[in-house]
Structure formats: structure tokens, C-alpha cells
């Protein structure tokens, strides 16, 4: 099913997870090859964010295995290889008194290292990252003064500034003006194709992204489909509904 020439950047093997009594994830296995653009789709509460948090080491693994860049997650140290854009549009404190520059530079914290200060080359990287998301010129504005879509671009710049090989985005378009959503996916497509960054995008807009992505995974507690985008397209609606246990149409409208 997967391109075997490319080594997987993420290997998830048989993981299950529960916060309380009931499992949120059950026996999920998933490989993400280098250079892939994976859309992780599924209804609300299907465990998408939980899976990402496990991959990012924000939650402790309960059972199963995760390898990042070929290394067991418990040994993994190169966290600046992984950029992360969380469901910020919902939780971000819009009054935070930080400039766009400061926010993006905070993405270099790990790279610069403890007890060290940002140098000229780091400041240049910040401007480069802002340029790559089309936000050059906004660096002195307060983050709270920007629109939701602009803020989301800044968060992508923050994730990109450490030059990660893998970028993980959790529902980045929630709270973004629908006019800009298309533009936004365009940007992701370019990052994937031109810069060769492996992408994992969590979304429940199944329809809007499938033409940009290379792989699709459908999650609802367990993995219901994992394959390349073409196979996904060849599935008919009936098959999709049985995967979700609910109508796909409903899913793309329910947020």
C-alpha cells in the first residue's frame, strides 16, 4: 500500500489509549513515509488530537509503540525536527502582549539552547519563516491584532522556523475565515511539494483537502482506512459512511 522505497518518518504500532475507563484509541497502527502529506480525518471526539499528542510526546504511551525518525519515542531527542500547530484558534489568548516576531522566534527556543541568546542568524530565520507564509511586514504587530487566518500563518511560521522535517497541524483552519481556507491549503501543498516537508493534517473537511494530500487516514477510535489519496477517492460514499458510522456529509458540516 505504501511506497516502500521511502523510509517511514513515523511508525505507530498497535497503540491503544484511554483517559478514563473507555478507550479513545484502539489498536491503531500507522506509518507515515517521508515526504507524505497525510490527511487524518474523523468525526469530533474520534481521537485525532489524542493520537497526535501521543506522537508529540505530550501524552504518555500506554500500550503499543511509536518510532519517530526510526527511533523509539522514549529515546527520541530531536524534537526540533517536528513542528506542531495545535488547535490554537480555539484556545489562544488573543490578548497576549507579544509581537509576531517574538512568537515566531519562540519556535527556536529549543534550537538556540538553554542559557543562550538569539543571534543574527536566528533573527534572519524568523524573517525567512514569516516570508514563507506570506507574513513578512507583520513582525512588529501584536499577535492579538491579527485576524484568525493571519494568526494561524504566524503559528505555522513558528513551527517552520526551526526547519522541521515533519509538520503536524491539528485542525488549523478552525476559526479561519472560509475565504482563506483554500489559500491556506495551497500554502501547505507548497510546503510539501517545494520544501519536501512531511505533513500530517488533521481536519474534518474531508472534501476540501483530498486533492492536495498524498495519503488519507480515517480514524474513529480505530483506524478505518489508511491508504493513498487515490484509493480514498475510489471509495464510494456508502463505504465511507460505514467507516465513520455516520454520514460523511454530516461530518463536513458539523463544526
Amino acid at each position, binding site marked *: 500500500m505504501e511506497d516502500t522505497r521511502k523510509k517511514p518518518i513515523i511508525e505507530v504500532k498497535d497503540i491503544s489509549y484511554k483517559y478514563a475507563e473507555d478507550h479513545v484509541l484502539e489498536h491503531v497502527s500507522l506509518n507515515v513515509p517521508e515526504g507524505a502529506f497525510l490527511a487524518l480525518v474523523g468525526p469530533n471526539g474520534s481521537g485525532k488530537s489524542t493520537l497526535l499528542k501521543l506522537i508529540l510526546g505530550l501524552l504518555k504511551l500506554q500500550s503499543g509503540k511509536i518510532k519517530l525518525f526510526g527511533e523509539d519515542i522514549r529515546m527520541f531527542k530531536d524534537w526540533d525536527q517536528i513542528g506542531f500547530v495545535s488547535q490554537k484558534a480555539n484556545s489562544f489568548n488573543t490578548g497576549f502582549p507579544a509581537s509576531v516576531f517574538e512568537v515566531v522566534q*519562540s519556535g527556536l527556543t529549543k534550537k538556540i539552547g538553554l542559557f543562550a541568546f538569539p543571534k543574527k542568524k536566528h533573527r534572519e530565520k524568523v524573517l525567512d519563516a514569516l516570508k514563507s507564509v506570506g507574513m513578512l511586514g507583520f513582525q512588529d504587530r501584536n499577535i492579538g491584532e491579527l485576524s484568525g487566518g493571519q494568526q494561524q500563518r504566524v503559528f505555522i511560521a513558528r513551527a517552520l522556523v526551526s526547519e522541521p522535517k515533519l509538520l503536524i497541524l491539528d485542525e488549523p483552519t478552525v476559526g479561519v475565515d472560509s475565504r482563506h481556507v483554500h489559500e491556506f491549503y495551497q500554502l501547505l501543498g507548497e510546503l510539501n511539494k517545494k520544501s519536501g516537508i512531511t505533513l500530517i493534517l488533521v481536519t474534518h473537511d474531508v472534501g476540501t483537502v483530498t486533492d492536495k494530500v498524498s495519503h488519507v487516514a480515517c480514524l474513529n477510535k480505530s483506524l478505518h482506512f489508511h491508504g493513498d489519496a487515490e484509493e480514498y477517492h475510489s471509495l464510494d460514499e456508502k463505504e465511507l459512511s460505514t467507516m465513520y458510522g455516520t454520514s460523511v456529509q454530516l461530518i463536513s458540516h458539523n463544526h
Partner: protein
Amino acid sequence: MISGIFQFEFLQNAFLTGIIIGALAPLLGVFVVVRRMSLIADALSHVTLAGIALSLLLEKRFMALAGLNPLYLGMAFSVAGSLFIERLRNVYRHYQELAIPIILSGGIGLSVIFISLAEGFNTDLYGYLFGSVSAVSRTDLWVVVAVFLIVVLTVILLYKELFLLSFDEEHARASGIPSKWIHFIFIIMVAMVISVSMRIVGILLVSALMTLPVAASLRFANGFKQTIFFSILFGEISVIAGLFLSYYLDLAPGGTIVIIAVGLLVTAILIGKRKKTKWGEGK
């Protein structure tokens, strides 16, 4: 007349201490406010009071302890209280603010017990509650200088990490920085600054000196560094003007300082630039 104020050593001590905490309290206050921990500062100040009351009690009961500076026990209680708050916040993950009333009432309860055991209120305690210009000793000043050096050095060295942790805790953890340690160091610094600040502004008003200048600064500042700069500026104006006024008008310094800080805040609200997105509008 101005020079008259500095001819007494105790006034020199008070002014130097005041100038230091006028910078120190708002410096940490910026991080406290943006992390929405203002009430924690309040709770810790009441725990500090318990330490001070205990120290005054011991002083009264045991002659051998007469020379003990109450600041030490106050600081010890404050640091212990901060660690306890962290425990409670983990125990009540979904009700993190519960830690505050628990610690706050615990602090007041202990203070009241110690005060009653000491058979009442004395002028020393009054000074700790409302601040005092005349009671600041050389030892107090040296303790404040030491805390100042430690805190400023730590904030400079860990500035990036403190910023990231304040702006986005989840991202801080995901990026692989030792965020637990950074937070731990931060909360201990807060506890130390609270206990040294209360000598001048008093227990009941310490958290005001940490938050009011920051609240005013948020109306003006662009960016985080500027927010810190204006917070310290407003803190210094409040402390210096407050100490002069309280000396010449014979007022309690804590109250005078805080009322000036409130005045600055109101002015900032009235004339401060209107932002498209205002502080506190976050979802």
C-alpha cells in the same frame, strides 16, 4: 527638604529596597499576569504572612530567636506554599483554581492561630501587613539585593524559555524544553519576590504591585519586552512617588504605593491606545 529624607539610615534602606522591588515585582508580575496566575500571587502572600506570624511568635516565646529576621520564615513558607499549590493543581486537574482558596484560607488560618498564640497584634505585624518605611533594616536590604540578583539573572538566562512557557505551555512541552523545571524555578522566584516585597508594600498589597503596573502596561505596549519595560517603569513610579508621599504625609507606604499604581492604571485605561483586540477578550 528632599535631602532630609535620606539622612536616616532606615530611610535609605527603605528607598533602596523600594527601588529594587519596584522593578522586581512587575518584572515577575508580567509573567504572572499573562499566565493568568495573579490569584496565586495573592494566595502566596497570605502564606508568607503565616511564616512571618510564626517567626514573631517564636521570637516572643524563645529569647534565643530574638534576632531572627521574620523574612526568612516568611520566604520559607512562601516557597513551600508555591510547591503545595503545584501539587494541588495536579490533584485537581480540572479545577486548578481550587488550589488558590485552599492555600489562601490555609495561610490566613495559620496566621490567625499564630497571632492569637502571640497574644495579639503588635506593631511589627502591622508593618508586615501594610508595609513600613521605618522598619526596613540593613539585613532586609541585603536579602532584597540577593533576591534581586538571583531573579534578574535567572530571568535573563531563561528568558526564551519563560516566554515560550507563558505564551504556549503545550508548545513548550512539545518542543522538548525542560518546561517542568522552568515552571518550578518560576514559581519559586514568585514566592521569593512576594516575601521580599511585602516589607515595603505589606502582605495585603504585594500582589497589587505585581499586577497593577502590568495591567497598565498592557494598554500601551507592543510586544513582550516593551510590556516588561513599561511594567517596571510604572512600578518604579508608584514605589518612588508612594514612598515620598507616605513619608511626608505620614501615610502607610503600601497603601500609598498601591493607590498611585491604581491612579496610573486608570490613566492608562483612559488615554492608552485602543487595541483592535483588547486584553481579556481571549476565548
